[in-house]
């Protein structure tokens, strides 16, 4: 994997003048369509990001500023690279041997692809929730406390009890706080020692969010977090995402465009070919997109 940071003059061609064809239309992507201006600070800055899977150029020269404490939705047809992009934000793509990543992704000003980055710490600060709920086959309490214990934030083992370093109170506090933030506490507070697999799908997904929150992240990446859930469970997850954005930076990949419209503050549209075509206020994207291809995609004329 290369850690090269490309600058404007080194780029092989000018991506801002690139003309691409998707569906039946052809258009030149204008730089202004991808420059999102917002008040406040940027939590994640991406520039010149290219990802190859072997010969497949999955992401092409992506640049994005992701505002803190807000919800950013990534939408686009299958294969457009939005999940690849999401995984680049906490280096989950490192686990894919064929992935070659160039460019820069900065979290709080530090390039996460730079030398000496502590991946464990990075993924603690930039957590991820996946499409299918994936609780451990352990109790609800253990699911939530697993991360803090692994990271050494709480100690509750036999040896710790023997040596008087038992941190059970802190564990219970983290478990309750995380479950409350994930809007699950009231539903499970009397059954914390039951197996997490006994929960419904929607509850399992909120448990996974609580597990993510327990290690005190800053950014939460979500890859289709409600696509496997029924409408009621989906609504709870959507409410939760909006609440989380008061404290965390949330980036959500979704195929459900109405969900993106409902929950996000800003939306980035990726289209086939691994390109970011438009990025802006969600209102603007869904009411008056600049790109005809984005218009065609979100109105369902192709994709």
């Amino acid at each position, binding site marked *: 994997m290369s850690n090269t940071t490309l600058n404007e003059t080194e780029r092989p061609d000018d991506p801002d003048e690139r003309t691409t064809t998707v569906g039946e239309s052809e258009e030149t992507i204008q730089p202004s369509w991808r420059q999102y201006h917002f008040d406040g600070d940027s939590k994640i800055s991406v520039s010149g990001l290219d990802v190859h899977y072997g010969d497949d150029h999955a992401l092409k020269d992506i640049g994005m500023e992701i505002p803190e404490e807000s919800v950013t939705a990534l939408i686009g047809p299958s294969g457009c690279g939005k999940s690849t992009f999401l995984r680049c934000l906490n280096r989950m793509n490192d686990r894919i041997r064929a992935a070659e990543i160039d460019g820069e992704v900065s979290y709080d000003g530090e390039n996460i692809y730079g030398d000496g980055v502590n991946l464990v710490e990075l993924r603690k600060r930039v957590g991820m929730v996946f499409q299918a709920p994936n609780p451990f086959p352990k109790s609800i309490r253990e699911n939530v406390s697993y991360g803090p214990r692994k990271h050494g934030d709480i100690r509750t083992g036999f040896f710790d009890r023997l040596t008087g370093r038992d941190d059970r109170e802190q564990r219970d506090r983290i478990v309750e706080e995380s479950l409350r933030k994930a809007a699950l506490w009231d539903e499970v507070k009397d059954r914390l020692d039951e197996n997490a697999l006994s929960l419904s799908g929607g509850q399992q997904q909120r448990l996974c969010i609580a597990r993510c929150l327990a290690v005190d992240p800053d950014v939460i990446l979500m890859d289709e977090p409600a696509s496997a859930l029924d409408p009621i469970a989906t609504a709870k997850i959507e409410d939760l995402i909006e609440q989380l954005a008061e404290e965390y930076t949330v980036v959500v990949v979704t195929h459900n465009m109405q969900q993106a419209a409902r929950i996000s503050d800003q939306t980035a549209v990726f289209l086939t070919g691994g390109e970011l075509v438009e990025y802006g206020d969600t209102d603007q994207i*869904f*009411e*008056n*997109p600049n790109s005809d291809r984005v218009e065609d995609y*979100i*109105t*369902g*004329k*192709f994709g």
Partner: protein
Amino acid sequence: MARTDYQRQLRALRADVVEMGEVVLGRYDGALTALETKDEELAREVIEGDDEINETYLDLESDCIGLFALQQPVASDLRFVAASFKILTDLERIGDLATNLAGYALDAERQRYPEVDIRHIGERVRTMVADAIDAYDRSDAGIAREVALRDDDIDQLCETASETVVADLLRTNYGDESAAILEDASRLLLTIRDLERVADHAVNVCARIVYMVEHDDELIY
């Protein structure tokens, strides 16, 4: 092309709104002619036809709500359905005003102010409505903007006409005829006001068309 049924519904909505506009325009024409010719039968046709317009309005409003609820339109589709939803209301109001005008035709016994050219004002207002409906059908913001500009002339014509009537009332002592004259004068002033309102609704339609086509709300506010 994906979502073919949805696309068909959007095309049908446009065609139905245009058709409703043409019916409303027909009623307005009838009212204008009835005012001029004192044709009671024609006036009653216009008045009785208002129920049909109201039913069409409710049906099309329901179609728009159905599209919002079931198809969740976005981008230009959203602007089109939202604009159509509002334009329907303006067309229905023009229908109501045509009914008012037809009612004045039934009551007016004679034209006491020949210098007030209701036919001229009415024709110019009619052209505004017809052009607004055409602009909607074509999604032509240019025509819509141009139609909206004509409203100042209509306002001026209506103001001049009203002043003519009021000045005559102030100037002339009609003696025993005063009550009848006042009744006719008020009816004429209401006619002028309603024509001006029809033009205002045409401008509203144009404002929604500009928003629909260009996402520009300058004429709405």
